[in-house]
């Protein structure tokens, strides 16, 4: 466990929950929070018992705003400062599925963090957007790359160039989130979705994530190779045998993660 700060990290069996916990500033990510998030993700990477990560925000916002890097140029210059403030990559690099429970506004770097999750479930009153280039430089925590890969270049450019705010229903329509639920049901619906994911075989779930996320950056023929190799590795797991056995016996499988 990491010392108390602005990331609340809790494990409940196979489910790790990361809560952005600085509601006074709408959970705006600063360098300290980014570092805490990197540390927490590092811990999760080392912990085989974690099978799903949920990231959410405390208070009314998911995370809003970004640090003005013009105010904190270090001696090593701009890139150093950008890298120090980035948080999304540590989430994106987790080997297990990551679910963002977007409890309120996800704006600027907060949106970039949500984009680094595999799945997004949003409260109906959540909004999504960037400040717009009128206000500062381009997004620097993955937004220019992950957003168009998720919703296509036109919507991404509209959001990044104009600072247009997207409400939850439009976000659902354009594929920015996977589902929208009433705000007071978010916790419950997140738990239900988590349970569905956790009912799958742990190694297969990791490999499904790897096959999709890595494979989408490969030409199709190489992606197919990756899928086949991961599948053949799965042949060696006892969970695969259990899955087949359970299917034949028409019961739910009991997976052990081996």
């Amino acid at each position, binding site marked *: 466990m990491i010392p108390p700060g602005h990331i609340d990290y809790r494990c409940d069996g196979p489910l790790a929950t990361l809560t952005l916990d600085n509601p006074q500033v709408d959970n705006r990510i600063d360098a300290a929070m980014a570092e805490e998030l990197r540390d927490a993700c590092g811990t999760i990477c080392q912990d085989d018992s974690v099978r799903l990560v949920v990231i959410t925000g405390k208070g009314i916002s998911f995370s809003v705003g970004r640090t003005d890097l013009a105010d904190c140029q270090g001696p090593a210059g701009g890139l150093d400062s950008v890298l120090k403030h980035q948080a999304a990559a540590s989430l994106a690099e987790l080997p297990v599925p990551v679910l963002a429970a977007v409890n309120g506004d996800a704006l600027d770097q907060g949106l970039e963090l949500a984009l680094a999750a595999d799945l997004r479930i949003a409260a109906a009153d959540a909004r999504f957007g960037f400040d717009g280039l009128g206000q500062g430089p381009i997004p620097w925590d993955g937004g220019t790359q992950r957003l168009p890969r998720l919703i296509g270049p036109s919507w991404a450019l509209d959001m990044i160039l104009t600072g247009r705010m997207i409400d939850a229903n439009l976000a659902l329509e354009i594929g920015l989130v996977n589902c929208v639920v009433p705000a007071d049901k978010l916790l419950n619906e997140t738990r239900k979705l988590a349970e569905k994911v956790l009912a799958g075989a742990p190694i297969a779930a990791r490999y499904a994530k790897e096959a*999709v996320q890595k494979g989408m950056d*490969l*030409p199709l023929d190489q992606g197919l190779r990756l*899928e086949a190799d991961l599948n053949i590795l799965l042949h060696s797991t006892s969970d695969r045998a259990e899955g087949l056995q359970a299917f034949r016996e028409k019961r739910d499988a009991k997976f052990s993660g081996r």
Partner: protein
Amino acid sequence: MPGFTTLKYSKDGPVAHISLNRPQALNAYNIQMRDDFAGALEAVQEDPDVRSLLITGRGRAFCAGADLTEFGRAPSQTIARQVRWERDVWGQMLRLTKPVVAAVHGYCIGSGVEIALLCDLRIAAEETIFALPEVHLGMIPAAGGTQTLPRSVGRSPALHLLLTGRRLDAMEALSLRLLTRVVPQDVLLEEGLSLARQLAELDSEFSASAKDCIRRGTDLPLAQALDLESRSAARALA
């Protein structure tokens, strides 16, 4: 006309029609079907009279998945890996230069979804149910689904389906772009055939290069993809 055990292969003018034909097993994909598919796809590609292909399923389902009693029993992982590439029917399907239509109905589960995703156009009957239950069975899709699905619907919706194994109906499949058309069940075959006939009328070199440009081009940096398009168009015009 080649005879197959698990598939019905027929020709209707320039349209070849492969119908999955294990209705008693909801057309579960088994080793015999894999081998039959290899033969049928070869016939489609080699037969100069065939200009398009329609794939459907007989009975209550298009295909309810892989026959799990048969797969995953290779004596070793090295042999499993070798067999995967010696009997690469999915690669064979992707390499078909002729346009392919899938017209699915009933249950379209696991391998059924994957077979459809390897086709160029997918239409479905209104009552069709789709799902990818592999992860909940301790595996991942093995017929290209982890690659073809996100290329059709995007990474996040693909992971949503793969990680939860949830079912979706034809209308949701349409809105996710897993399909491009949904029709009433009683006209599915007719619609599939008419689409395949329409594709059969195309200049075969044009349709082959359109398929190739779109499939390969979407994985390339834009400048290279545009170059691929220019060269393909120039070759077709020559």
